[in-house]
């Protein structure tokens, strides 16, 4: 089971877990990123996520390929949501399953770290003071949200 998708509906982490679950595996690691109410000290009210969808899905596939090569994890599902997200919404979820815990845990971490470096997805944050801004983690004031 290996699947990567950009989705526009709500992400259901429990359903992703069910996809990778198997009696061959003893360990399931899940990471979920959610929209939080502050970023870099500013009050956030909502986030619009957008993507270069076709490339984002290809890049996610390549990341899963690399993860499988590094950690031997073949059961891994990742979904990233785009569109208008509210506070608390799940923006991304990664689930990896393996016989043992270390590969499952390290795989999940690798995938979220790589997503943040190179998957073409962007967020437009809306702030409590009415302003809006494209998040730029490469800018000096940029702070990753999750």
């Amino acid at each position, binding site marked *: 089971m290996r699947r990567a998708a950009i989705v526009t509906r709500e992400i259901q982490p429990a359903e992703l877990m069910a996809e990778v679950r198997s009696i061959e595996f003893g360990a399931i690691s899940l990471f979920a990123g959610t929209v939080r109410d502050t970023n870099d000290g500013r009050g956030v009210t909502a986030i619009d996520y957008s993507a270069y969808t076709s490339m984002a899905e290809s890049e996610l596939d390549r990341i899963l390929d690399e993860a499988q090569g590094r950690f031997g994890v073949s059961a891994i599902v990742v979904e990233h949501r785009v569109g208008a997200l509210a506070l608390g919404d799940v923006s991304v979820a990664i689930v990896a399953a393996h016989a043992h815990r270390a590969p499952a845990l390290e795989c999940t971490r690798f995938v979220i770290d790589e997503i943040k470096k190179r998957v073409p997805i*962007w967020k*437009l944050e809306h702030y409590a003071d009415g302003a809006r801004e494209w998040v730029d983690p490469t*800018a000096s004031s*940029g702070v990753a949200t999750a």
Partner: protein
Amino acid sequence: MSIVTVQLFASYAESFGGPTLEIPLDPGSTVGDLVDNIRALPGAYILPESPRVAVNRRFASFDQVVGPRDEVALIPPVAGG
């Protein structure tokens, strides 16, 4: 001379005022040549020193040759997760 369509997203689409740019390029031109041409346009102040460019849905180096049959995109700093 041919025309390469460049897709824009997020802050770049806002800065250049639309979802695509049509850039004239000589045959054999590279990603670096394309970026040089884009720098001459209004809105290009937003580009960093080395903007990321994707060709056919993969990040491309500046010396990669690019033409009108390629799917080309300028990639703003990503912020997924």
